[in-house]
């Protein structure tokens, strides 16, 4: 019964998480409110817009009971702007959407896919965490709800290529301690690159394990002897290439 999969999420699992994202729909049929397990579903009254999870939106769409409103960032104008930004900024991904203010209480803070970054009210100028999967799923299931689906498809492909190139370039800065910042990375991109990146970091760590052990020992000795000589450490920890 134990799961036979290696650590890390598989693409279907990433898509499963992405299907929890809320999207905006325009219902074509009435549907009474439902007590669902994740959140109560409010009654759907056409033509009032409603925000529902993607899995339900796809189900309603397939049965022609609703139309999906693509999120603002999935319009050709926004994608073109983001693509331009990605091409100009060579060493970082375009910034993720602005976070909501941190809640003051002790409640766990929200993160994707619960941030409402793909409803019709989402910010138009940033790619959310699940941009690739969500865009692909909407283009596949609801291409007729887009104004220019082919254009959107083309821009998505462009974005994907630019960003994958950045991800590959980023390998140069990996080192044994980890500590690499990757703000703005997407879920599916991370899923693709995960085993490679963690493999490189783990491999480098094993190569420099003895050096690290020396450093730890030296630090402990210094602590015991009670003097701080840490200022004149040699900073050559990355000279293994």
């Amino acid at each position, binding site marked *: 019964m*134990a799961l036979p999969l290696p650590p890390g999420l598989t693409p279907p699992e990433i898509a499963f*998480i992405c299907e929890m994202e809320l999207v905006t729909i325009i219902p074509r049929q009435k*549907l009474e409110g439902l007590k669902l397990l994740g959140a109560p579903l409010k009654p759907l009254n056409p033509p009032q817009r409603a925000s529902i999870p993607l899995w*339900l939106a796809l189900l309603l769409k397939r049965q022609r009971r609703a139309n999906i409103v693509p999120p603002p960032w999935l319009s050709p104008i926004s994608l073109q702007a983001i693509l331009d930004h990605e091409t100009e900024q060579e060493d970082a991904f375009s910034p993720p959407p602005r976070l909501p203010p941190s809640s003051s209480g002790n409640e766990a803070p929200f993160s994707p896919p619960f941030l409402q970054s793909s409803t019709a009210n989402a910010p138009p100028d940033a790619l959310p965490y699940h941009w690739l999967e969500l865009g692909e799923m909407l283009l596949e299931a609801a291409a007729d709800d887009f104004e220019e689906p082919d254009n959107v498809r083309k821009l998505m492909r462009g974005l994907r290529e630019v960003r994958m190139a950045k991800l590959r370039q980023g390998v140069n800065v990996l080192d*044994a301690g980890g500590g690499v910042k990757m703000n703005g990375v997407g879920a599916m991109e991370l899923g693709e690159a995960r085993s490679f990146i963690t493999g490189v970091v783990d491999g480098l*760590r094993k190569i420099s394990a003895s050096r*690290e052990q020396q450093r730890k020992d030296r630090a402990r000795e210094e602590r015991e002897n009670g003097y701080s000589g840490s200022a004149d450490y040699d900073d050559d920890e990355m000279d293994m290439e």
Partner: protein
Amino acid sequence: MDDIDDILAEIAVDSIPQETRDLQELTRCWVAERVAPELLPWPEEVVERVLERIRRQIELVEDQTGDMDPKTGFRLIVVQTELERFKFLVRSFLRARLRKIDAHPLHILNQHKDSLEISRPLLSASEHQYLTTHQSLLATHYNSSFLSQFPASLQRLDDTTGGISMVDKPDEDAAIFVRCLRDVGEILIDGTETRIDMKRGDVWVVRWSAVKQWVEVGDLEVI
């Protein structure tokens, strides 16, 4: 303009129902369990709440399946689709934990004993039962098939003589991806000179051992 947005967003956050919070928490636990090298403490409360809701939802489906009205039919399809999603989530979560329990049984048993002292059990009651029963079966089998013919000093399964422990454990320094949910500040990675400053919203590739404590209190999220 921003102020109004912030206020509105805060109201929206406060009005989010407990069900959604539980779904988010369970999803987070599942992802963490799928990715992190070590077993994480058993999130008893959220699992109990979710299982109770699943139980009630199944009863509802059983009550209503007899209804022949086509309208209820579609409602039931929606309910059942969601039910299946929840069942998958719970099942995959438990199986990911089982995988770790099977891989490092003795190490996890020791960790579990330590965790009982700080009353944050690592294993659920049934996981603990599974682990101990499985181990005693294995031990009996090894004993009857070959161990009993070894010299007494070589019969132990958790020998630590010679400086090497027989008890296998996961690679606690494995690299993982984390997202920062609350400002954490500077983290020093043990054994290196690397210091990283974690701010809310950041995504980092970092060693599990360096960030584990913040993941457990919920300041960081494994992705």
